[in-house]
């Protein structure tokens, strides 16, 4: 049925599939078909942070003292991260919200995309601090061939899904001629586009981001650009949650109980899935070659980063039930784990970012004997 912002059909939300059922009407969480999405929302909210909380002033001095080839590595990496979060801050909302049929998933998608917008704002915080001409850094993103090449693959599946759904929403299933161009659309084809889109999102969050994290943390391992690393650490903690969310969606769809047709599509798309992972991994290796084109840095070079790409690709494929495609089984940069541990994000308790830190925890149970030694 056509999308509406408040669906008037009285429906049982517990019987709706995750996607392509009735659009959501009441945002209610008293009953949940998939409680995991509510738990993810709560976790994400407990992670809330703002870039301004992190002092990046020492990074400016560090950056000025970096040799040129390391400046290239650092700033290119940051530009790539900016591209990824620009896409992720809006696309889940634009592409997925009109297709969702259960409220807890709808709110998870909104919460997820919102946290990506914080990441985008933190890149501006970092760039403003290390450069007196931040506009040059951002302007170059659109002019940099290596980044734009990546943008194509990162956005293609989102755009195809949005384009197809718009046509379906307006004209329904069938073959339609719009502006002299004939396109056909069917619900099954849309479901396939959604499944491929989620796979590509998973690749973005679970592989592409991690390659960039490795570069950020490689500087901090040498006690350089540590403010940046603190921010990236918070971003990495968020991303670990996002990729778990996407893995849940993919696995629920593939199991077929939610929507049997989706289960069939997931089986059908297995080769496409492997191809999406493989292509992304190869692109990330090409990116590694671009980063290190003028020289390596201590602790990280092109070969090590490529091995990490293979290692992380294997792990992410296994997580959604695919067989690994590379022979690398060992993490070539085990030091990255220490940077990725969520509670290491926090060093001093007063900095209030501990993931288990809950706001407004009050004990409402007071026994009368609590006042025993109380005199007026």
């Amino acid at each position, binding site marked *: 049925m056509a999308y509406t912002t408040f669906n008037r059909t009285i429906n049982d939300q517990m019987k709706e599939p995750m996607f392509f059922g009735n659009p959501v009407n009441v945002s209610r969480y008293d009953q949940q078909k998939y409680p995991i999405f509510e738990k993810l929302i709560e976790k994400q909210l407990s992670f809330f942070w703002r870039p301004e909380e992190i002092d990046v002033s020492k990074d400016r001095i560090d950056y000025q003292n970096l040799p040129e080839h390391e400046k290239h590595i650092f700033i290119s990496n940051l530009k790539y991260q900016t591209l990824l979060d620009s896409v992720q801050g809006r696309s889940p909302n634009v592409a997925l919200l009109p297709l969702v049929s259960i409220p807890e998933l709808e709110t998870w998608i909104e919460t997820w995309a919102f946290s990506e917008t914080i990441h985008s704002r933190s890149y501006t915080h970092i760039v403003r601090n290390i450069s007196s001409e931040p506009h040059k850094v951002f302007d170059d993103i659109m002019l940099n061939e290596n980044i734009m090449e990546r943008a194509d693959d990162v956005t293609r599946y989102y755009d195809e899904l949005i384009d197809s759904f718009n046509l379906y929403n307006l004209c329904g299933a069938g073959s339609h001629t719009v502006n002299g161009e004939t396109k056909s659309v069917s619900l099954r084809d849309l479901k396939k586009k959604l499944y491929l889109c989620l796979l590509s999102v998973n690749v973005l969050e679970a592989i592409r981001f991690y390659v960039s994290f490795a570069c950020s943390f490689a500087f901090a391992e040498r006690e350089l650009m540590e403010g940046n690393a603190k921010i990236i650490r918070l971003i990495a903690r968020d991303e670990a*949650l996002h*990729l778990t969310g996407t893995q849940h969606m993919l696995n629920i769809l593939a199991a077929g109980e939610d929507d049997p047709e989706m289960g069939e599509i997931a089986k059908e798309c297995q080769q496409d899935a492997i191809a999406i992972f493989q292509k992304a991994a190869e692109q990330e290796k090409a990116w590694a070659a671009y980063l290190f084109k003028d020289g390596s840095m201590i602790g990280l070079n092109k070969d090590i980063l490529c091995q990490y790409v293979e290692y992380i690709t294997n*792990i992410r494929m*296994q997580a959604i039930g695919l067989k690994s495609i590379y022979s690398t089984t060992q*993490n070539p940069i085990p030091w990255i*784990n220490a940077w*990725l*541990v*969520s509670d290491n994000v926090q060093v001093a308790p007063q900095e209030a970012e501990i993931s288990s830190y809950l706001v407004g925890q009050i004990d409402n149970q007071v026994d009368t004997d609590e006042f025993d030694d109380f005199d007026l």
Partner: protein
Amino acid sequence: MPKVRLTSGVELEFDSQANLLDALEQAKQPMNYQCREGFCGACRCTLVSGSIRYLYEPLAFVRKGEFLPCCSVPDSDIDIELP
């Protein structure tokens, strides 16, 4: 003390460590990890036999036959396989 046997032949005793991930690391096993609180799923392993108990419900997707050592302890002697 429950025994933890790995398919690689390594055997260790779970001796009141906080969780299975700590125990496996102490035994010098190459473990994948990230969040260490059950939401990233990086440490997932296969439970071949025996049973484990979660200290709290993990948020990560855990497939049938898999478990997350970062937030679990053995409930009996267990056989596990590392990825």
